[in-house]
């Protein structure tokens, strides 16, 4: 049987390359998160000026996961869009792999947000606009994953979930503004004060290191998942059957 090497070249190369870089991402993730958490726990003040005590330290995990959950959604849409435009299989696999890590970090963001809520406001769940939006974001991630697993044909599941991801991207800002100011008359005067200013430099360092660590963790898990998807989808091809790890 004739093998069209060129056809699989993209996935073969990617598979090998990903296999080589994944360990580095893991090492970087562990180091960065360790530094970030160490700094966050031991090198930062015990209480903040505005009356916040030790519990503010959850922010080191919370902010990182919040940012990642959003960034990963944008990344997922990016790959989905590349797939729809250029019809490249690898980008659909990237989108699909990203969704699971994204959903996971959304759960982390919600859980740490709930812990924050319990310690500062006294309730596990407050219908705060940001938390609510993240709950909806989690539903959208779950919808994406559910749609993908409901369709047997990979071509259709790739494309259909890509369209869903795009629709979600268009609607998330609308949803955020709806939960942020349900009364449209008061929206124009309401400004989201940026909490990033006036942050104690040590706290900032902790936040930056954990966030970078989360990035590395996301890359590592996404690439591992893409490798699995490649193996699963191309299990009948010649090059996969020649791999050491499948024999």
């Amino acid at each position, binding site marked *: 049987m004739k093998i*069209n090497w060129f056809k699989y070249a993209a996935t073969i190369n990617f598979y090998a390359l990903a296999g080589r870089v994944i360990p580095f991402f893991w090492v970087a993730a562990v180091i960065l998160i360790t530094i970030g958490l160490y700094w966050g726990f031991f090198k930062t003040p015990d209480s903040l000026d505005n009356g916040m005590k030790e519990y503010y330290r959850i922010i080191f995990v919370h902010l990182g996961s919040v940012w990642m959950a959003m960034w990963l959604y944008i990344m997922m849409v990016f790959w989905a869009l590349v797939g729809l435009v250029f*019809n490249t299989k690898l980008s659909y696999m990237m989108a699909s792999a990203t969704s699971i890590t994204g959903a996971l970090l959304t759960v982390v963001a919600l859980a740490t947000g709930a812990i924050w809520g319990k310690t500062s406001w006294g309730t596990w769940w407050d219908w705060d606009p940001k938390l609510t939006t993240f709950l909806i974001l989690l539903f959208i991630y779950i919808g994406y994953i559910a749609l993908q697993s409901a369709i047997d*044909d*990979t071509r259709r599941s790739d494309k259909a979930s890509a369209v869903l991801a795009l629709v979600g991207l268009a609607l998330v800002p609308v949803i955020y503004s709806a939960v942020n100011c349900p009364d449209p008359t008061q929206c124009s005067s309401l400004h989201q004060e940026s909490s990033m200013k006036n942050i104690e430099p040590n706290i900032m360092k902790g936040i930056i290191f954990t966030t970078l660590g989360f990035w590395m963790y996301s890359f590592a898990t996404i690439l591992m998942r893409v490798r699995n998807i490649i193996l699963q*989808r*191309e*299990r*009948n*091809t010649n090059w996969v059957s020649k791999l050491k790890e499948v024999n």
Partner: protein
Amino acid sequence: MKLEAKNLQCTRGDRELFSDLSFSLEKSQLMMLEGQNGSGKTTLLRALCGLYEPDEGEILWQGKSIKKLDEAYRRELFYLGHLNAIKPDLTVLENLRFNTLLAGDSVTDEALMQALGTIGLFAFEDFPASQLSQGQKRRVSLARLLVSKANLWILDEPFVALDIAAVELLQSIIAKHVEEGGMVILTTHQEVPLTRGKIKRLSLSGGSIKEQVGVNA
């Protein structure tokens, strides 16, 4: 008029149906698509209609990609798949009228009734389609062929569920279209005798592609 397929490759799931498939079809030509079940006949027909995007290769109509031509190509096309597109809640005439208008052919009710008569459904026009048999439903959708202005007919197993008389009738309708300069692509085990024009045979079985040209039958 010319339909060309260049280096088509289609897969279903992780199974490759065919690759490097090229052929062309010109006016007054009939193409018979052969192959076992699962060899990709239906997928190829759907790809030729633009319903399915092949993994590789392109399909050209008059030298232009059918994807770019879009509506202009669909105006030249008549496709009948396994499904008849018949609504059980509508009458025979309503079904036929909707489907022809949808295809862009504005035809009078008299012409539609005449087509129904020719296809063997005389006086059935006000019958609810839910009461028709499979073969009769097939006839209703085939009646569209009689009023269609499309040049290229793509028919997936058109003879299924038809009785002998209807098979002969359809053979003559197809032959007439080809002899008048039309193009037909179909999957079937039934022969279509032609007095003029050309028959091409394309076999998808076992991954091999044979193109055999037979003149006249």
